[in-house]
């Protein structure tokens, strides 16, 4: 039977079915029954399948981002560290690096335990970078540490999503798959931000989180700078008959410094005669808020694990020193990627706000400590 005859036969039959009212009724009934059957028994399966497809697509993107960030790390380490061996296997195994938090069953002394573990982690990171990049200049080590951290972050996100995806697929449990699919938009936002951060760390560009350090740097520009603790500097100068002491991490490497120790030392150096502590830091904005918006409050403006916050609160409470907090708002993406123009402009406004606080809330002869909190990468 030729192709044309077959087509004619099919179309003629279709024509007859549509012309005959009984056949048409039966056809409609069949369609209705099929539709009802699918809706009754397969709707959840269909939904689960669609969610899984979506998760699979995001997982593929995550895998690309994680492997690309690993490539960037390896390339950078080969470029600046010039190792005479292949660092890839060591980097590959270090991507699974983890930190076990101290137990909180007995919370007494947990802050010191946490501090100890974080110090060990920091040492471990530094020694690893020195091991795989033996010729790296000292001031470039923090940038490589930051780069390594972003690669670890991306790898962790990828493994987590893969775990829930496979678990959902194996168990066919709608709850697992639904949870994964609903969290995916946020996870992917973090992943893209981490990936952009990889580029910033690999070339040493200032990131949004460094706005506090930038404000401090603007205040101490042209003044004599001394080191106070490991990776932390300070500058002391007169301003309208007040003594200002500005503290920040030592740049331009990706350092956050030991701000808590520095504040403690300064306060002890002056026997507790500090009239005010003003802290400037980047903070997460709520959706709808403008990037670079400055808000003022009281308390210790510092993020992280809470270890530094605890120490600063302790010493400020001991000497009853008022704490002013100035925060510059931005999204998580903006905080870990290259600084935006709005943030740069906000730093100039923040300097004015700090000077205004000093003018209005302190008197002549007062000692004021100003702390620029944040990662000082790309900022002297």
């Amino acid at each position, binding site marked *: 039977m030729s192709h044309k005859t077959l087509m004619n036969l099919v*179309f003629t039959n*279709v*024509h007859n079915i*549509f*012309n005959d009212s009984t056949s048409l009724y039966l056809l409609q009934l069949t369609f209705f029954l099929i539709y009802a059957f699918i809706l009754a028994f397969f709707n959840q399966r269909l939904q689960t399948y669609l969610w899984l497809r979506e998760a699979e*697509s995001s997982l*593929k*993107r995550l895998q*690309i*981002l994680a492997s*690309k960030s690993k490539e960037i790390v390896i390339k950078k380490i080969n470029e600046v560290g010039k190792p005479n061996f292949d660092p890839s296997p060591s980097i590959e195994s270090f991507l699974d690096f983890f930190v076990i938090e101290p137990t909180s069953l007995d919370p007494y002394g947990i802050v010191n335990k946490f501090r100890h573990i974080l110090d060990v982690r920091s040492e471990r990171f530094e020694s690893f970078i020195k091991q795989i990049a033996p010729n790296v200049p000292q001031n470039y080590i923090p940038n490589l540490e930051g780069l390594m951290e972003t690669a670890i972050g991306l790898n962790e996100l990828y493994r987590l999503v893969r775990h829930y995806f496979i678990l959902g697929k194996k168990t066919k449990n709608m709850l697992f798959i639904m949870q994964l699919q609903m969290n995916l938009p946020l996870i992917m936002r973090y992943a*893209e931000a981490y*990936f*952009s951060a990889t*580029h910033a760390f690999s*070339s*040493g*560009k*200032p990131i949004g989180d460094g706005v506090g350090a*930038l404000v401090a*740097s603007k205040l101490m*520009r042209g003044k004599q700078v001394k080191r106070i603790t490991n990776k932390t500097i300070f500058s002391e100068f007169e301003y309208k008959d007040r003594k200002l002491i500005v503290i920040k991490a030592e*740049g*331009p490497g990706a350092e956050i410094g030991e701000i808590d120790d520095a504040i403690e030392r300064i306060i002890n150096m002056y026997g507790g005669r500090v009239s005010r502590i003003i802290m400037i830091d980047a903070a997460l904005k709520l959706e709808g808020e403008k990037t670079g918006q400055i808000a003022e409050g009281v308390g210790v403006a510092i993020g992280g694990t809470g270890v530094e916050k605890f120490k600063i609160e302790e010493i400020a409470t001991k000497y009853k020193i008022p704490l002013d907090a100035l925060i510059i708002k931005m999204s998580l993406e903006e905080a870990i*990627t*290259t*600084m*935006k*123009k709005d*943030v*740069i402009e906000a730093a100039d406004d923040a300097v004015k706000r700090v000077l205004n606080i000093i003018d209005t809330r302190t008197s002549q002869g007062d000692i004021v400590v100003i702390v620029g909190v944040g990662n000082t990468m*790309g*900022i*002297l």
Partner: protein
Amino acid sequence: MVKLSKNNVLLLLSILFSILSIIFLFMAVINVQSTYDLVNLYSIDFLAAGVLCMILSMFFSYRHRRLLSLKILKQSQTVTRIRCDNDNCNYKEERFFQEGDYIFREVGKCPKCNGNLYIDAIYDLELKAKK
């Protein structure tokens, strides 16, 4: 001749089939209207071709989106702003970021007043990365 990427080919195919689908569906309607017969063979032909083109268009559009989602986005450009430290001189220049740049790094002498030039700001030109 312009060489098209796989992405653009998929996009063009998707657009082409959606146009064809509209044309076929339109012809099916015209045919029904001119013959007053809902089930004449030509309109079924046109309808089938229209639906087929629509499915193909959706398929290529899906492939295009999927390929885009797997593509690494291009990073936005970073700018280094240089200023003169002389308060009376308003010399300012902007250039693309170079590795080794950092804020408050001294980068030479001012061509206007011979003061010291320093990097005043480093920032991203655009908020969203380009596709």
